[in-house]
């Protein structure tokens, strides 16, 4: 099963182009959707999760037209929105059970088992009788995952799931996701580069509604090898460098500024080579150094 998105576009009434001719092919496995806040990630995710309409374009999952056969999609969908609440006065078990019914698990015993299993998997079994109103952010997030996983979905969409999780929970959560990726299409949207680099076999970078890069993370990193250079400068000296070079990122380092620049050759001896990371890929893409075609071809080379 493969999710194919082609030429998807969406413009909001206020004129914002949230999706601008987005085309992606997402195979089974974890797929990272990386982009800054407001890039259009959530719009894309919601559109794929049947909650939003696209102005144009199409998306198919296996043989299903995602934009039209919504009911079909929903039967195989597990969706964890970026932001969601719960009924404060309902217990975790109770609400999960309700969602299980809604997801078509109508057999009483099977439902009970499923709910139990999912509560265990998400480490919520001990608090299953507690009201959701008392849950912490992480617990709530895990509860959301449990809901998303109900009914063994083939398409899992998780929107910024690690925001608000503490480090341990994040690790556990990402582990869970990666296992899911073994037999489902899992789309993970995030603005945290590590999430993608640690988990995803494929990824796309999106900004202002456009896909800037679609690639395998490792191949994309490889493609950058030898093209990223660094230099530490005084904060005040930044301007001339920005004028002279393709600066892709700056970061403070012990009170001074660490520059990363993109260049086919070492700009000058004061620059040191960098072993590129996914973050460099991201910033390179954001800085507009990748064209889509280039990255595609890069991806093809790599695969």
């Amino acid at each position: 099963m493969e999710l194919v998105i082609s030429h998807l576009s969406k413009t909001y009434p206020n004129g914002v182009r949230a999706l601008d001719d987005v085309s992606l092919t997402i195979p089974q496995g974890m797929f990272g959707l990386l982009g800054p806040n407001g890039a259009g990630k959530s719009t894309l995710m919601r559109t794929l999760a049947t909650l939003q309409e696209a102005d144009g374009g199409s998306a198919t999952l296996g043989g299903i037209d995602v934009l039209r056969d919504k009911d079909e999609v929903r039967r195989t969908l597990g969706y964890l929105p970026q932001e969601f609440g719960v009924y404060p006065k309902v217990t975790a078990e109770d609400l999960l059970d309700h969602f299980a019914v809604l997801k078509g698990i109508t057999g009483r015993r099977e439902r009970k088992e499923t709910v139990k299993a999912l509560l265990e998997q998400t480490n919520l079994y001990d608090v299953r009788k507690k009201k959701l109103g008392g849950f912490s952010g992480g617990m709530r997030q895990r509860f959301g995952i449990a809901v998303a996983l109900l009914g063994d979905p083939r398409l899992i969409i998780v929107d910024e799931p690690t925001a608000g999780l503490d480090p341990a929970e994040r690790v556990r959560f990402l582990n869970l996701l990666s296992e899911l990726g073994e037999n489902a299409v899992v789309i993970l949207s995030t603005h945290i580069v590590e999430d993608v680099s640690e988990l995803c076999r494929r990824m796309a970078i999106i900004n202002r509604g456009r896909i800037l890069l679609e690639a395998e993370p490792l191949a994309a990193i490889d493609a950058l090898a030898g093209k990223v250079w660094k230099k530490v400068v005084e904060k005040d000296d930044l301007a001339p460098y920005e004028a002279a070079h393709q600066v892709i990122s700056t970061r403070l380092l012990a009170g001074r500024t660490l520059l990363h620049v993109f260049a086919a050759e070492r700009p000058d001896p004061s620059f040191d080579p960098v072993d590129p990371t996914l973050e460099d890929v991201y910033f390179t893409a954001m800085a507009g150094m990748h064209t889509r075609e280039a990255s595609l071809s890069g991806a093809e080379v790599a695969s």
Partner: protein
Amino acid sequence: MKGPFLETVRFELAYYLRRISTWVYFGIFFLIAFLLVLAAGGAWESVGVSFGGSGGNIKVDSPYVALQLTAALSIFGVIVTAALLGNSVYRDYEAVIHPLFFTSPVTRFSYLGGRFLGALLVNALVMLSVPLGLMAGAAAPWTDRARFGAFTLAGHLHPYLVVVLPTLLLTGAIFFALAAITRQMLPNYIGGVVLVFGYLLAGSLMQDLDNERRAALLDPFGGYAIELATKYWSPAQKNQLLVPLEDVFLWNRLLWLGVGLTVFLVVYARFRFTHVAAERASRKRVTHEETASGTAYVAPRRLSLPRPARHFGAAAQLRQYLSVARRSFWTIVGNRYFYAIIAAALLFMAISAQEVGKMYGTTTWPVTYAVLDLLGATFTLFLLIIISFYTGELVWQERDVRLNQVHDATPVPTWVPLAGKFTALALVIVLLQGVMLATGVATQAAKGYFNFELGLYVRRLFGTELLSLVLLAVFVMLVHVVVNHKYMGHLLVILYVVFSGLMSQFGLEHNLYRYNSGSSGTYSDMNGFGPWLEPFGWFKLYWIGWALLLAVLTNLFWVRGQETRMAWRARLARFRFRRPALAATLVAGLLVLGLGGFIFYNTNVLNDFVTSREVEERRAEYERTYKRFEGAPQPRVVGVRVWTDIFPEEGRARVRGEYRLRNKTEVAIDSLHLMVPQEVEIRRMAFDRPATRVLADPEHSFYVYRLAAPLQPGDSLRLEWEVDYGGEGFENSVSNTRVVRNGTFFDSGILPSFGYAEGVELGDDDTRRKHGLQPKPRMAPVNDPEARMNTYISRDSDWIDFEATVSTSPDQVAIAPGYLQRTWTEDGRRYFHYRMDSPILNFYSFLSARYEVERDRWVGPDGRQVAIEVYHHPGHEYNVERMIYGVKKSLDYFTANFGPYQHRQVRILEFPRYATFAQSFPNTIPYSEGIGFIARLDDEEDVDYPFYVTAHEVAHQWWAHQVIGGNVQGSTLLSETLAQYSAMMVMEEEYGREQMRKFLKYEMDQYFSGRSMERKKELPLLLVENQQYIHYNKGSVAMYALRDYIGEERLNGAIRAFLEANRFREPPYPNSLEFYRHLQAATPDSLRYVLTDLFETITMYGNRARSASYTRLPDGRWEVTLEVEGNKIRADSLGNERPVRMNDLVDVGVFAAAPAGKPKEAGPVLYLQKHRIGSGTQRVRVVVDREPASAGIDPYHKLLDQQAGDNTVEVKPAAGGVRATRRP
């Protein structure tokens, strides 16, 4: 310090003023106010509404009407206040932005005060739309300008200041406070419900005059206080005065302002900038659980996701639907606020149940239908709030907690959440109906009544009412889903309900286009649901079809996902409109078309559907076309024989009749003008000589026959006719309550009659103008010789011979005036033959029901016997004995004081409560089950109105059936006022003066309220134009006062003399002036002014006692000094008042201490004498033997006085203590 405060206010103002909903609220209220004025102002010909009694003498732009409209709209404004003030702080919680505010250095004062003030200002601005809308309406040119002309700016702004703003402060403070403290919106609604209950409660307590003032204080909106303050305003005053901010109204405003202020201060004191208070309880758990989930290392486990079988078929959808329904239901029912609402409702019902069916302050037995009516009336608003509120909550349930995305992405068809939630809502309604049942039964039991008709409870609560409520809920659901804005949804729902109640007045009268129409009518113990049930069923089926369509529409527009713009929703709706929706639409559409057609066939083909507008047109047309025949010589009916076949099960009757007519005029008559009411169908119309029909105009009920040979003066003629009434299908709104399964009652009004009927003409001048007719006087002048040739109840006859044969179903008894000659059964029907042995008015009735009969006998002092029979519904025995006793007492008094009774029998016959009157026909008194049969007289002080009504109707056997006035002004004085006086005398003899005082208090109240609604002109009693408030209510007071001044003997002597001179008089018929001459003859010159005041003018008093003190005299007695104020007022026909000089004899009374809980004047009388009282303040000194407690002027309210409460004051010891006097 003022920086942050003003900034908060500014921010709040800016926030709301930018919001579109603020302006939508403004627009809605402006538009409503504007349209209401246009509607009442006659902008649309088909619209016939009146607000605050507008029309006639009261101008639409008068201060009074503006006040009433503003007060009413201010109640609806509560929804806006809930939205604006309630959200003012709550939105911070909702947006979880409150920590930012709470941690900023703003003070509590700036935050709360600023928010409150800001939102309040916005709300005040929104409500400014009401006076603006009213003024715009008043200025609109396309209205009937004659209905305007009392405009003042102050008249429109004053209500805003004294009604809208104080109410706003109160409701605003409550909503603001509740939301700020509880951090929830739900308690707001409870607050709203409680306010509405205060309003309803005030309304139900107002019915008892003794409670009025308390009740008026209780209304948080002030409407009932206004009602009390303006209750007696004459039309002229309504056009001129602003409601004075004094007395009850002032106290009401102060009380509720105080409540509002208190609430605000309490909140201010208790409010803390802390983390969510409401979650305190659960916070402990959070910390506890945090450790459970821990942050320590947990070994990764292999993920093994269960792969349960999943089902998406119909069975699974059913399960899902049930799951949603169950969850939604418990969401509502599991919330403690739900019980708060129920508790408030129960409390309210417990109080208002005290008022079951009050009349003259006397309650009725809490029979099941009465309790259901009471619960229904008070619960309707409540249920509406519940339905709208919970619909809103359910529609927004997921979105309110932001679980909607997860929910919307589940693989359930859209109808599942919709239907599930709707089912939950329906279940809640069922539950509430159950609560009502329990309450009803408990109410009955608490009042010592144990005949619980559970079947009736179930049929109404879970049958007719539930059906209507569920249909309403479907519509409410649609509104909330489509509007997709909670408060706007509530507002629209309320407006819809109000409008749907007014639709018929707006000219939209056919039930086919009034959603959820179809009334279950008036339930009667005698006749059950009666003729309403069948049309109710068909209409509701029809609306179920529509409801299905609405449900499909709701489903199409159900918000799922993030697209909430209408364009997208419309596109989605088109997309969703696929096979299941299509099929449902088709089925529903067929249902609607099929049933609609069937209904139309019944209402418009089998029956005649005429709008009020068309009725008006017909009446106007009738006048224009046939007025020329008025006064054309016609023969008079001198004898009537009828054969009436009543078919109760079929709701129809066939009446065959034979009129004997005589030409009593001086001229030959060649044309006969017949009126045959449009609702009967003529089967036969045959004269005993050649005649041709030259005109048949069924629409206007007018027929003309030309006799081949004119009828010569003195000659006779016979007419045989046969008509059918009723029985064809069902009507749009049931008008045939005459012939019914059990309790048929109809009179000669639906049978053929002769001559142009002036009574058909439009009477109301506004309406006449609308149809291009000149205003006309209500009645002919008192001396009009031509008009006096007819009585005021018939125009084609004088005294007639009468004979009737009535048949009915075998289990029923049928009655007509006359004495029963014979009864027999033939062809499975029961026949009764009645004949009257003396001439009667051409005015008779037919009744048929399954009766039980109670018989008795009155024996006069001369040994004459009168048979007394009461035909009543089995189970309604409560007051039958009283009625019989009332008949006997009446016969005693009337025969002794006025003259003999002309018949040998008095029959009282119960009929269903479709009308609530009793009416006297010759020896026959139909008496509604709604007045008296179930009256409950436990307390000796209760006004025994079954007894009184009986006496009144028996008195009509003299006053109307022995002497009857001509068709001129003042004639109803001769029948109604005299019947009223006669009944009072009987009642006083039986119950004493104390009960008469109570009775007269209501009479006086009704007179003053009645005149305040006069649409044409108020007349003195002597010239009364069939105005009930004059001939009944003022008549009672006037006659009672006159008796007090000249004595019962003299008064009765005058009445007797009048009767003797006019018994069974032939035309010209007597008028009130003839009667008045007898009164004048009996009145000493010194009291002539009393007659003038009571009969010739509109005279009122404003007497009051200012203070009273006593000193102990040396001889041990007490001298009371009473300072009184005399005011005498004359009013013109519009109620313009002017003071007149007073030098009148008025009671001065001194009383010993009254028993606890009784009015002051109920104490033992120490002194009661008439004193000459002049205008202005004066002192009266009186010496009494015992210690006085109170004293007053006109303490028994014998004179017409709008402020009766200030006539008596406490007597206090004089400042000087014991006064040494020279007196012995």
